[in-house]
């Protein structure tokens, strides 16, 4: 991928939560790149930091207790060969600049559409408000026409009527579409999708996924798609980042991740899920134990207490580095030949 395709570069991002019970390192040194027109999948279970990562990019981490304590989030804008790089981590979360970016350049959709819509205004009014805010000089009539057009584009029937509907008058699937219409109304270059299909029925999920694929192509935007569902990620992502307890444990192109998983966590997760295209044969190879409490993250590799390849004295001493094992395939595991890095800070548990 060429340098010009680079849209967002996250470097060693650390977002911590300072709570009464201790410090939760929700995002703990995450680095990744998002490219124009591509979908980056972020996969992980509860508490892996995938949602906090998205919130960090938009600078909407609840603060206090949350705080970005380190790292960079570089937003690349390029026009006429001129490159302009903004570090989102340095912006004032309440300032003018991030507010111009939110909704316009980076938009977000959620699992629950009512997170995006207020109950008291029609969906049309809320979309129009977004348009007027980000596209100065647009008349109200133009904004309404655009809102109606967007609702039609996302497959809402009779958009000229539904533009005046209140959120509660729409079904779950329709609300999800309306939220996507609002998010795309300003043609963002990046769409953050946080479990956007998790609460939907499979047949509606299939509709929304195909809609997102189609709109991505049409608008040329990048998508960061966050989910815990392996089936959904296989369908939508070009590249995948696997997170576990705040860290990236594996990153690969979609095919490599599913056909050649390297990290024991990824491999075990793929083995353990029941599959609709496989006949049931005996027990599922389940992963032992549970995701540890965020206050009691094991020292060293955070998956070490559940790992079948656990090597005492190695895995529990220091966090392994993310290492490129084959082209474009990174793994954070000692199985792939790396010395315990003396320079790596060892103190991990709070």
């Amino acid at each position, binding site marked *: 991928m060429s340098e010009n395709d680079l849209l967002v570069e996250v470097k060693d991002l650390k977002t911590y939560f300072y709570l009464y019970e201790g410090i939760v390192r929700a995002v703990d040194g995450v680095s990744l790149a998002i490219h124009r027109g591509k979908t980056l999948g972020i996969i992980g279970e509860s508490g892996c930091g995938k949602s906090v990562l998205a919130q960090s990019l938009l600078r909407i981490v609840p603060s206090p207790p949350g705080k970005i304590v380190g790292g960079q989030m570089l937003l690349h804008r390029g026009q006429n060969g001129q490159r302009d790089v903004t570090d989102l981590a340095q912006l004032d979360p309440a300032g003018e600049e991030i507010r111009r970016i939110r909704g316009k350049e980076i938009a977000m959709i959620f699992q629950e559409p009512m997170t995006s819509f207020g109950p008291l205004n029609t969906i049309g009014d809320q979309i129009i408000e977004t348009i007027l805010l980000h596209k100065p000089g647009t008349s109200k009539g133009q904004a309404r026409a655009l809102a109606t057009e967007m609702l039609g584009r996302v497959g809402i029937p009779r958009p000229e009527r539904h533009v005046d509907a209140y959120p509660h008058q729409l079904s779950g699937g*329709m609300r999800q579409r309306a939220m996507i219409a609002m998010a795309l109304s300003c043609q963002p270059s990046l769409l953050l999708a946080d479990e956007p299909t998790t609460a939907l029925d*499979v047949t509606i999920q299939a509709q929304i996924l195909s809609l997102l694929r189609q709109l991505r192509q049409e608008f040329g935007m990048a998508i960061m798609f966050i989910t815990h569902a392996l*089936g959904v990620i*296989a369908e939508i992502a070009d590249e995948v980042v696997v997170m576990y307890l705040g860290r990236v444990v594996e990153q690969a192109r979609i095919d490599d991740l599913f056909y050649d998983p390297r990290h024991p966590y990824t491999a075990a997760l793929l083995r353990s899920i*029941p599959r609709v295209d496989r006949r049931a044969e005996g027990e599922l190879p389940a992963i032992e134990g549970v995701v540890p409490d965020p206050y009691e993250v094991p020292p060293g590799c955070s998956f070490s207490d559940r790992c079948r390849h656990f090597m005492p004295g190695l895995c529990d001493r220091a966090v392994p580095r993310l290492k490129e094992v084959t082209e474009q395939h990174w793994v954070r595991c000692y199985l792939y030949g790396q010395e315990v890095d003396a320079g790596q800070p060892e103190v991990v548990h709070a």
Partner: protein
Amino acid sequence: MPDERKVLLEVKGLQKYFPIQRGLLKRTTGYVKAVDGVDFFIKEGETLGLVGESGCGKTTTGRCIVRVLEPTAGEILMQDDSGAMLAVNKLDRKALHVFRRNMQMIFQDPYSSLNPRMTVFEIIGEPLVVNGIARGRELEDRVEQVLVSVGLKVEHLRRYPHSFSGGQRQRIGIARALVLNPKLIICDEPVSALDVSVQAQIINLLQKLQSQYHLTYLFVAHDMSVVRHISNRISVMYVGKMVELAQTEELMANPTHPYTEALLSAVPRPDPRWKADRIIMTGEAPDPANPPPGCVFHTRCRYAQEICRREEPSLCEVSPEHYTRCHFANMIMLRGIPSH
């Protein structure tokens, strides 16, 4: 292969209508037909999967069977201790209370289904105490034995639910359901609220307990992958009606109802090389308060003909033990999921 096992539960023509009441006088202006035509049986030691999308009536069906909800019509027959079939829907309060020991439920949300003010010991032991079955030393022994069989430890007994993870809470819920030695367990989405890495543990546990205690499961869920893994047979529901019922492999490979075909095709597969040639169903499921005339699926069916808009199809047996509610069953070629 004919199955010689005895039928444990039989449901015939089950209906559950919820009245819609309007105005000051609470006049009934209509009915939500949550369940409107469900027929199946489950054999001893078998798992019947009940799948469908939200609002299809699968949970209501489960609740009617244990009579947490009173069915509007239909029969629920279950084997009693002598082996005869007993009409559960006709039992009076007292008889029902006694008989309910035979059927227990496991719920979806392990965070809201356990009383936060009770210890694990009290939660699991309560059914024994309420039914006057055990107390004192015997109560402790029974609770401990069940606790260990679901993979928890004796030292967990004095703790409260909040100190457990979702997976462990689900184990507590399972222990509570098991403690009365039921024959039938209705599992209502028992793994859908759990982390992916914990789901497999609970599925394995349910299967282990099934063979250990010779349990029969009605497994209600929306996740086709999980249902396929755990079920011997699968029943598909759509807007209150059972539209198809067959052996798991038969249903997966040769669905005969267009809704089943579309549902199978919509399930995401963890395989990036699989090229989804998907049947994208347009629109949404109709409102069960106002179902369309004729076949309930005709509004979204890509094979619908004139007759489908007019006449309601009845359930017919298309091949041995494979039932479908479609006018064109066996006349149209439908796609299933070939198994590897």
